[in-house]
């Protein structure tokens, strides 16, 4: 690996904090951690409310609930109860892909349904309009299930989306459930993930006990099929002989959710958005969960091996090994091609609640150095690992988010592993129901920054001059104004898939093209250099 001399991360941190008023600076300081020698000891403040007036990249509770978790499900018809904007902005903006079972199977993802609240409803209440809206949507599409999402004004005017859901459910004879995901709840979209998990668990999971055919059955949790990632993974699982029962919630369907409790394992991709579901399914049905990562070829290989070892069948393990060996050939070839052009270059990753961790693996594989990484809406356990959970303080903003009381299901709870099997997995270093977090995987003298502000981002660009910045569309154009490419890790800028082995190859190539295109040389305008030369002349 090429040696790169990096600036002192602690000094950079000081620079970032300089312009803030003292109080704000003190607050922000806790959200910026210099990754040190003993990574296990690094602590960071996260999941606290953004200071008013600081421009954040965070969205709202509703965005997390409707947009992230429920959005990728094609056949739950989703009605947004509120003024038009909230619905409009979340309409087909994420690039989740889906493949209905047949050309006429329902797919409501291209649609946006809203009650488009008017002043009359704000003053006199909107339940009547909501009921009629449900009826109209039902008449149009006859869906199996309808989800109702409340946006900010709804809770305040006293509309009860749950009551309306129950009533209409009885009347229409289909499953209708509400989400109290008003945007002001919690501190970011993260609150919405939790609410979405709760309601799906309460109203959908476990409705269909029909046994599932196939071997090695598991669910994939926290994979939203951006850019077709889930398709790549589905193929990989099928080829190795696994049975994927359901995905929460990329390329997913209502029926799959209903029977997901019949699986024997939950794989967790995005820990932040879906760990609640994994935990609740563990408690109620006895399904263990395993944190995996399918971003990065090596990580994919590791994850696939863990998965095979969990089921423990020797033949399965061999099939998986063979599969990995075959796929790795193409991966190595692509890696060897791009690595010389990328080695030692710096990247910054500020995105999401898991991607900033997952994508570091891909950069390592092509020799790039991630000097700073952080999340928009993660919690401390995503940074430092689940070990901090017990000591976690819950502030007023998060206390309002319901924690479901879940108990063993008296008839359907079934432990999936014997004591022996558990022991064996421990010996193999496979930890169930565990996540180590992002910081322990980062190198020392790098920065971990939570809920980075627009201002801090600009400062980092100036101080590190990275070859690449990874974030979302809100950051993209500002970064590019500085002559630095920005990869969107929410929507992949129309690219992808990046998961699995084929995805890794796509990503290597994409990063190579982005960094090494000639455009950046043009943006570093020639007159700047001239000026510098002139300045040099003047001083000599």
């Amino acid at each position: 690996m090429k040696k790169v001399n990096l600036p002192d991360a602690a000094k950079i941190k000081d620079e970032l904090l300089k312009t803030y008023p003292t109080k704000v600076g003190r607050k922000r300081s806790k959200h910026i951690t210099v990754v040190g020698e003993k990574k296990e000891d690094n602590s960071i403040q996260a999941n606290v409310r953004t200071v008013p007036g600081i421009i954040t990249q965070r969205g709202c509770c509703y965005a997390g609930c409707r947009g992230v978790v429920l959005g990728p499900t094609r056949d739950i018809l989703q009605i947004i109860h509120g003024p038009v904007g909230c619905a409009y902005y979340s309409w087909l903006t994420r690039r989740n892909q889906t493949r209905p079972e047949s050309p006429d199977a329902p797919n409501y993802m291209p649609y946006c349904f809203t009650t488009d609240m008017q002043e009359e409803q704000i003053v006199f209440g909107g339940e009547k309009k909501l009921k009629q809206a449900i009826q109209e949507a039902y008449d149009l599409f006859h869906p199996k299930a309808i989800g109702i999402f409340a946006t900010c004004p709804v809770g305040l005017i006293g509309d009860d989306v749950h009551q309306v859901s129950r009533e209409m459910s009885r009347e229409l004879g289909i499953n209708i459930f509400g989400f109290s995901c008003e945007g002001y709840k919690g501190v970011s979209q993260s609150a919405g993930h939790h609410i979405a998990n709760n309601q799906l668990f309460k109203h959908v999971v476990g409705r269909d006990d029909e046994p599932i055919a196939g071997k090695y059955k598991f669910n994939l949790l926290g994979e939203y099929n951006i850019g077709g990632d889930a398709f790549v993974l589905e193929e990989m699982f099928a080829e190795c002989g696994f049975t994927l029962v359901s995905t929460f919630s990329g390329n997913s369907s209502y029926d799959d959710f209903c029977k997901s409790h019949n699986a024997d394992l939950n794989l967790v991709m995005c820990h932040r958005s879906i760990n609640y579901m994994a935990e609740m399914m563990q408690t109620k049905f006895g399904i263990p969960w395993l944190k995996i990562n399918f971003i990065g070829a090596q990580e994919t290989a590791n994850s696939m091996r863990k998965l095979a070892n969990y089921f423990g069948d020797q033949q399965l393990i061999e099939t998986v090994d063979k599969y990995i060996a075959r796929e790795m050939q193409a991966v190595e070839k692509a890696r060897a091609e791009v690595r010389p052009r990328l080695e030692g270059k710096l990247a910054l990753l500020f995105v999401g609640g898991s991607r900033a961790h997952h994508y570091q693996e891909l950069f390592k594989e092509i020799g790039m150095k991630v000097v700073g990484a952080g999340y928009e809406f993660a919690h401390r356990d995503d940074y430092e690992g689940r070990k901090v959970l017990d000591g976690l303080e819950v502030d007023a903003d998060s206390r309002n988010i319901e924690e479901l009381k879940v108990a063993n299901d008296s008839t359907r709870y079934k432990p999936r592993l014997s004591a022996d099997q558990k022991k064996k997995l421990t010996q193999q270093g496979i930890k169930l129901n565990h996540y180590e977090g992002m910081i322990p995987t980062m190198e020392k003298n790098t920065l971990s920054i939570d809920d980075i502000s627009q201002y801090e981002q600009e400062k980092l660009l100036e101080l590190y001059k990275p070859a690449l910045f990874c974030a979302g569309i809100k950051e993209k154009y500002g970064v590019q104004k500085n002559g630095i490419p920005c990869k969107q890790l929410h929507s992949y800028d129309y690219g992808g898939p990046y998961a699995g082995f084929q995805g890794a190859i796509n990503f290597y190539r994409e990063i190579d093209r982005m960094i090494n295109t000639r455009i950046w040389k043009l943006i570093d305008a020639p007159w700047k250099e001239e000026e510098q030369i002139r300045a040099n002349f003047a001083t000599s």
Partner: protein
Amino acid sequence: MEMKTNTKSKPNAVTNPCNLCTPLGACLVFKGIKGALPLLHGSQGCATYIRRYLISHYNEPIDIASSNFTERTTIFGGKKNLISALENICTQYTPELIGVATTCLSETIGDDVPQYLREFKSEQKSACLPHIVSVSTPSYNGAYMEGFQATIKSLVVYFAASRPRTRRVVLFPNLVSPADIRYLKELLADFGMNFVILPDYAETFDGGPWDGYQKIPQGGTRIADLSELGGFASAIELGHSLVGQESAGAYLEREFAVKRHISGLPIGIKATDKFISILETVSGKKMPEEIRKERGRLLDAYADAHKYLFEKKAIVFGEADMVAAMAGFLLEIGVIPVLCATGSRSGILKAELEKLSCESGRSFEIREGVDFGEIEEISGKLKPDFMLGNSKGYSLARRQGIPLVRVGFPIHDRIGGQRVLHLGYRGTQQLFDRIVNTIIENTQEQSSIGYTYM
């Protein structure tokens, strides 16, 4: 003339809305003022969504702050949050102006923003406080155009004061593209006018790379100019929707006797002629030769391509002023706008289009307060040859196999939405070529041979 104006068949559920929310319009205007930063008073989600949405059209960094309500704020009111937001913005961004727009949430709880602002200003000792202009923009009452116009008005009311009369002119261009604004500037300069455009986001929404970090992007209407508005000779407003309205132009005329002129969006020969005649009146100059030539070329193109267009049918949808202007233009070139639809409920479109219908002797459907679900219901029967409107029509166009010519706002499935020129002879020329070529391309693709000559 027999006109069909319908209200929705499904009055409660909106399927695929054709309208954006009010504070978005406010943000657009504030982003067109030099040194200004918009602040949305409400939960952070609205600010984030609106930023995200504007960025996807303009492909530029766009900052919008939020006062970041918590659940407690919804109970105790938003004053504390608003003040802390203002303070933090001042120290971090040192803006010349902070534009505060409300959201559904702060409106629902009944926050009195103007009162909070008065208190804030009186409590601040610091002399270098920025201007703070506020506007009420609940989305359950109106839509983004209402927010857009209300914000312009708020700015004018805040800044305009009595001034000695000058010969200067203010142009309110409506919600047009940065390319349109640049074109309008060129045009007004050609007429030798000393003018101000409000809002002017030509640069803030479509600028070049940066030499260093810009807290607030360069460009925009200068505040010094806004304070001079009271002494201006004329105000020109674009958009039929402003006729009879208490708009910024109406205010300037009433309070400061600034002569007000209104023209629809200048799209097509006739509409542009009208706009140009206003410029002639205001400047006292005849149309410059170069513009006359531009007009000539456009007429020539009409003549060259009329046979490809005649009797073709189009669905036009989007913001009311844009739809009205496009319908006028289409009728002029022999295309029938079989359905003119807008999500706005203001009633303007109907009035304007009925006039057009009478003039042209054509009848067509007009729908206000519409959603795409409803457009789809009728478009099947209308069998249009193409659709003219924003990106949100794509799903429908795709399902029905109709080409979509992208105009207006938002365009987020193509690059360059900010550079689509719509206005004047030049903008019409570009639109015209795109429309004709869309039709020719469609015919070409469907022909079994694939001729390479027209």
